[in-house]
């Protein structure tokens, strides 16, 4: 009676997850390696990892190693094990391993889908220097980055299935009600 297994769709297999719609493609992968770095020494720590600066939700980035601005003194560094930071002067670092799922939303209709999930003006030029990449998208906590012809949504692994199901449920609504 209380078994809700059938109600909840199983999570996708992240190795093969993909959604296609008219003018839109959505793919997913586990982030290779992720760290949360905080502290006054953040810029230097990022520089040591080969990242010039952390980006917000409207700054485009296509590098394989990049950082997302979370707070004025805190960022997510996404890269690979070779770039593992450590606690250096003025910073602390927490490994997040494969706890983040990256979902890429790309294509001409990507902007329409993004507008369904948040009131954020994703298409506008980059905002202020301290704009955080973290926001609620579809009511779920994600960090957003512009990349390629779309956006990359970084979702915590436990929330990633819910985000995926939301994207799957809304891909057909892109363009509906557009004015």
């Amino acid at each position, binding site marked *: 009676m*209380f*078994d*809700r297994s059938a109600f*909840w769709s199983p*999570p996708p297999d992240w190795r093969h997850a993909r959604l296609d719609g008219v003018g839109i493609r959505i793919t997913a992968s586990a982030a290779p390696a992720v760290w949360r770095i905080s502290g006054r020494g953040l810029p230097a720590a990022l520089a040591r990892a080969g990242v010039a600066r952390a980006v917000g939700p409207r700054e485009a980035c296509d590098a394989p190693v990049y950082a997302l601005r979370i707070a004025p003194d805190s960022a997510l560094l996404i890269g690979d094990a070779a770039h593992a930071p450590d606690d250096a002067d003025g910073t602390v670092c927490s490994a997040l391993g494969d*706890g983040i799922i990256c979902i890429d939303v790309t294509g001409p209709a990507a902007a329409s889908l993004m*507008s369904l999930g948040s009131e954020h003006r994703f298409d506008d030029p980059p905002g202020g220097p301290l704009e955080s990449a973290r926001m609620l998208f579809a009511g779920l906590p994600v960090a957003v980055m512009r990349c390629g012809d779309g956006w990359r949504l970084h979702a915590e692994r436990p929330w990633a*299935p819910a985000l995926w*199901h939301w994207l799957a449920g809304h891909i057909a609504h892109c363009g509906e009600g557009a004015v």
Partner: protein
Amino acid sequence: MSAPRMDGPTMDGPRMRGLRRLPEGGEIDRSRPLSFSFDGRAHIGYAGDTLASALLAAGETVLARSFKYHRPRGLLGAHHEEPNAILDLRAGTRHEPNARATLEPLVDGARLSSIHALGTARRDLLAVMDRFARFIPAAFYYKTFMWPHWHVYEGTIRRMAGLGRVAADSRAQGGALRHIDVDLCVIGSGAAGLAAARAGLKAGRSVLLVEQRSRVGGALLWRDAVIDGVPGARWAQDLGAALAAGGARVLTQTTAVGLYDHNSAVLHERSGDGGRIWQVRARAFVLATGAIERPLLFGDNDRPGIMLADAALEYLRRYAVVAGSEVVFATGNDTAYQAALAYAAVGARCTVVDARTDTPAMAAARAAGIEVLAGERIESTLGKDRVQGVRTASGRTLPADLLTVSGGWTPLIHLYCHARGRPRWDAERGVLLPGAPVQGATVVGAADGARSLADALAQGVQAGGGAATDVPACIAPPFDWGGAPDTRMAFGARRTWVDLQHDVTAKDIALAVRENFRAVEHLKRYTTLGMANDQGRTSNVNGLALLAERTGRTIAEAGVTTFRPPFLPVPIAAVVGTQRGELQAPLRRLAAEAVHREERAELRGYGDMLRPASYGPAQDAMTRECKAARERCVILDASSLGKIEVLGPDAAALLDFVFYTRMSSLAPGRLRYGLALAESGAVFDDGVVLRVSADRFVVSCSSSHVAAMTAHLEAWREDRFDLSRAFVHDTTPRWATMAISGPASKGVMTALGLGIDLDDTAFPHMSARDGRFAGEPARVARVSFTGERSYEVSVPAGLAEELWRRARTVGAEPLGVEALGALRCEKGFILVGVETDGETMPQDIGMGRAREVRTDPYVGDRSLHTPAAQRSGRRQLVGVAVAGDEPLPVGAHALSRGARPHSVGWITSSHMGVGAGKPVALAMIEDGASRHGETLEFEHFGTLHRGTLVAPCFYDPKGTRLDVRP
């Protein structure tokens, strides 16, 4: 504007059958006839019709029955002001139980039914209620239906109340919520709104124009006007097209239902099934929401066939429907004469009854062949189920199949009030107008009391940021606001209806005043005037005027009520939109969910996480899993537990401040159980803290409280710590944690080969060690929630399935959350939020020592020393032992002794204790800690149970099982 004359037989007053559709004109498409039915009667309408215009053209006059007295009602208005015509609509798969006939477009095959009638609107068996009207006036329910008690009558009255019925199989679908962010949002596309939108676009701003009707133009669509040399309707359509072509966004069939803080608005777009919600953020709003006509007050002013004059004109001009052939126009202002002239032009026999003695409009009407009775008022109407005539105050009787009424105008200032604007009474115009400006929104046009079309256009241009030179030239009849409501005919021999939706009469208002409900807020609530779903659009101001008259005050002195969202009812389907099913309240997922499904776990939501409740049906699995935990080894997916890192030189100090239990004295590699309190001293959460190193801790908090605990730590970090010396990082998503528990758990851990020395001396309880699993780091903590020897193994989330399968291979059996609940219950381990509530303090659950010994500050410390915290009678954690085999019901209340027993606490958890071999329960009982041995009665839905208060641990109270060897 000229109107085509009617074809066919001469319009001959009472002998004219039914109502007519003009052969040409209007916005309908006569090449697309649409079939529909109303209460089983088949009719034909046209594309472009609303349900209301199609019903009107088909001769349907009785469309509804009133709420209380079941009086027959017809169309009063043509749009959202319509109070009566709410119907049940079925079209295809769509079912709308409360469709507003004046807003719904006609679709082919629509099946309409009247609602709130026992039978149909035409023949309602409950019409007999009107004969008992004198016994059920306003507020009758405060004085009657009391003996022997209200509940005797409640069921019947509830069944009679309400409007449409939602079908059990209803599956209305809403569209996806959309967001839009613009510089200028203009609400209303009449003259002022269109002018504002054009000015805004010209000034380079992004513009959103919102219109309730199916096309832009507002009243320009049916009233006489010439703007920039073209008829107003065409000017509006041309401008609307130009706006869209110029990049403005135009939403029709869309209502602004609310204006909210921070320059935001919510729109409801009526498209498809339930429609769609838009959330708008705008730098500025222009509220060009217009004004609606007021009814007149006289006897039997609610009969079908009584219509607002402007509505009659709209039906004629937009839908080519002639609502009557023998028409009386009752008015006290000039604006009604447009309707009279238009009806006369199509051949209707028209008579104007004007309370005024002489105006230029009268002369123009007489010149058009319209009889004008000056200085006259309507006393009452004739007819039963529809108007057949009127009686004037002088005693004259006039035949009529349509009576139009115009008692003045009411600006629509709802959105202004949503933005906390306070209206003011304008005595000269007899209207409530916006008072002081509100931030972010400008009211223009008729909504702001504009006296002419030219005024409205000028206001709109200015609000849009344009210059005076941008104001278009216009020619239009002057707009006569009509002054305050005329109450002289309101208290005649026949009942005068004020609020048609709630059946409130003028005598009800007088009754309320006699009973001293003289304040407008009291009047509203006592009579329910203005409290129906139309929010009193056509009744509020008339009601205020009657209140003022009865209390010898001016309307301004009588006061005003306010308006709150939504402006119009919004279907739940639109609010839900696409957030249905598993999208409505999504849950976090375990990384190993796939293997749990393979093992046939029953999955349930626990907090915000989907977890295995049991492996197999819970009833069978509980005992099996508990026995496995007590006798062998089990594995539980504990990945939901929080793992919040607290780092930096001040990490220890931060934790000492946030936790009731001091954590700075932990050695690296050691764990400690602790409570975090709220400032009230109540338990906020509990958890286990691991010290990894001098400056790094991991807080493992309750599964459903991770986000809250992270925020709690972060808030206090920011409040009182150097932000460069303390940090909070939630690393919960990184880890998958499997709890391996049971007397045989050490053997399973050995078989897993994590590279950790498992000797109890090297690895004691409440400590942690680092190892490796599948080449990746693994952290193992000896901490137990079952009371057995336990190891919590944390590995990278991507290895969750592999760890589970390996552990199963080497002998661990699955344990679900339900069985875990039973195991921890017989150990007396609390669950925050189950044993505790918003008042439970540490001393209530046996953890009062820190309160006595700590002298350094921590969250909640002062609250723990208040009189309330130290008084006797506080509920305290106890165990409850029962005789027999049946566990006590959770929630059963313990009763005090004596003549009037009351609750002294309740059962919080209850299970069959496999380890204890008997039913076990935990409870929070007043002074429970000092009442061990006392037997109490526990009441649950009328059944009494007996239980004896004991210490809360029923199994292994000394904790020897933690280090048991297999």
